[in-house]
């Protein structure tokens, strides 16, 4: 099979979806807590959040590795736990940790993929690898972390699947390798009109590569919006000023030097008050995560609530 890109996705609104998905582990750990999410066809979506937010769990549910305790997931309308082969047919996956076979060469991996996956596009994979100067005859054990991630991506792209799920593929890569990886990904996905969702901690890189962002925190969805829209609607300001008309305070969070910063969301198209500036994606994510850590019912202490009294018998702080 030859071709320059991935096969076009079937016509449905959501490439990946999750409906009221919850995942509970033994010991009462809630990895996911009622997630509702749609990843639109043709988008490149970043799934971000702190460790334990449930990103990998959700991705593994889409791949059919981790059945939800409650709710359902679909890949182009197919439930991977009811029709695993149907879902996998439409999906390429790059796992969080390098999953290459020790002792096999890069070419062996491509041959393995050809033998396992009918229609696997070996030419596409090998062309991608050649562009990156990764020798096909090289033993996987001698590849750098970046090269291993590129091989994994080339294998996922070779499936010509309309949906790609990438679970923290950038985690072990240096900045240059991250750029290269994302460049290959975006190029491949855009040229085929495919859909990709990738989880990452490195927010600065994904801002360039992705068009949507989903923020997860504590197993819940905190933000799900296009990156342009989200960045355009949020402002930050040093300190914690009094409420401003037309702006909603989202949360306060510490800046790089510990200085207090607050994130605000503009309700409409209003001029920025003095001191306000557009939020970076990183600040947006940090602010949103900070907002998720506080229960919604708790009043905003910085504006409404007096300081709590010291505990009885204790030293006032």
């Amino acid at each position, binding site marked *: 099979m030859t071709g320059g890109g991935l096969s076009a996705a079937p016509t449905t609104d959501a490439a990946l979806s999750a409906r009221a998905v919850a995942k509970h582990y033994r010991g009462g750990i809630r990895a996911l807590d009622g997630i509702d999410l749609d990843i639109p066809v043709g988008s490149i979506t970043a799934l971000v959040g702190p460790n334990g937010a449930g990103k990998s769990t959700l991705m*593994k549910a889409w791949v059919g590795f981790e059945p939800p305790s409650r709710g359902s997931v679909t890949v182009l309308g197919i439930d991977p736990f009811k029709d695993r082969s149907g879902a*996998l047919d439409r999906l390429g996956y790059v*796992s969080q940790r390098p*999953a290459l076979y020790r002792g*096999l060469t890069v070419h062996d991996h491509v041959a393995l993929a050809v033998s*396992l*996956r009918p229609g696997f596009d070996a030419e596409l994979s090998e062309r991608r690898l050649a562009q990156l100067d990764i020798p096909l005859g090289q033993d996987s054990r001698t590849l750098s972390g970046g090269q291993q991630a590129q091989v994994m991506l080339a294998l996922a792209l070779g499936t010509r699947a309309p949906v790609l799920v990438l679970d923290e593929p950038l985690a072990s890569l240096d900045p240059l390798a991250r750029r290269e990886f994302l460049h290959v990904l975006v190029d491949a996905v855009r040229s085929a009109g495919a859909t990709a969702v990738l989880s990452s901690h490195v927010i600065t890189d994904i801002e360039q590569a992705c068009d949507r962002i989903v923020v997860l925190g504590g197993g819940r969805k905190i933000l799900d919006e296009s990156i342009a829209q989200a960045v355009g609607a949020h402002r930050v300001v040093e300190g914690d000023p009094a409420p401003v008309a037309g702006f909603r305070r989202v949360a306060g969070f510490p800046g790089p030097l510990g200085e207090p910063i607050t994130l605000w969301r503009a309700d409409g198209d209003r001029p920025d008050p003095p001191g306000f500036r557009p939020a970076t994606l990183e600040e947006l994510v940090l602010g949103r995560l900070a907002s998720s850590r506080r229960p919604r019912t708790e009043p905003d202490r910085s504006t409404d609530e007096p300081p709590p009294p010291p505990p009885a018998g204790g030293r006032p702080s």
Partner: protein
Amino acid sequence: MRTTIRLTLKTLRFEIVSMTIAVVLLGLATLYVAWQLDSVHMPVDCLYSDFGIVSAPIFNQAHEDACQPLRQAFYELSNSGGQVFALGVLIPAVSGLLIGVPLVSRELESGSASLAWTLSRSRRRWYYRRVVPLGLIVLAILAVPSIATVVLETSKEPGISPWVSFIDGSLRGPVIALRGLMAMGIGVLVGAVIGRQLPTVIVGGLAVILVTAFVPGLMERYIRDQAAWMPGSGRGDYVIGQGFRNLATGEIVDPGEIYNLAPLDADGNPDQAWFDAHYQQQVLAMPGARYPEIVALECVILGTAAAGAIVLGGLVVDRRRPT
């Protein structure tokens, strides 16, 4: 399919090469001992059996003098043959286990299962395309000691075909290969459940020991059920016990009780004439001619255990998480 087999063998090349070397050395050692036994040129009428000297009609001192040095050399070598038979149980089982263990558990441990399980539409197909060829390779490699032990048995027990003899019955022939396959199946199954290699070797090893101990017990029970009382036994028969048949009633009496039944003669000893008139000595045995049936049954049990473990392993692979 050919690519899958080639890559499976490549990922397991250390285990397969090690196993092949160990098994070929075992086969060569077995054949060497057989050759040494043949070199003694032991006459059949010099052999001992469970019931005395085989085929020696009457005691003859000259014959005994001629036999003695041959016996000494032959039985010393025969002891070496016993040690080789013991290795013939150990090495194939260990080899089978060590080949079976990494097949799934290493993939789970290293994370490559997640790559394979997303590239392949069917985990079962992925699993069987790896495990079936490997099982056939294990059987092919273990054919070497299976054949060599039959050759050794022919040399160790001259004058009787190993196919009509229960002597060393579970230590030779196809049982060896099937035992290795059973160990491989257990290694694959336990590896699929545990997902880590070292614990799989420990747990799988214990399971193989249990099955290896259980099957001969099962076979002995079957042989006991199938055995019949007969006036005497031949070399190669599976003898379970002795007794005395009451010629009038057909009832079998235990040797310990028979002397209580016999009247005493004038000297106070059991009356031999009365005894000969009323009882006949019997053995409870299975004829050696039924050895092929028994060994085939043992092979079926081991093969079923192997197949069962492999099928269960497939079910586990189909359902489990890749990490």
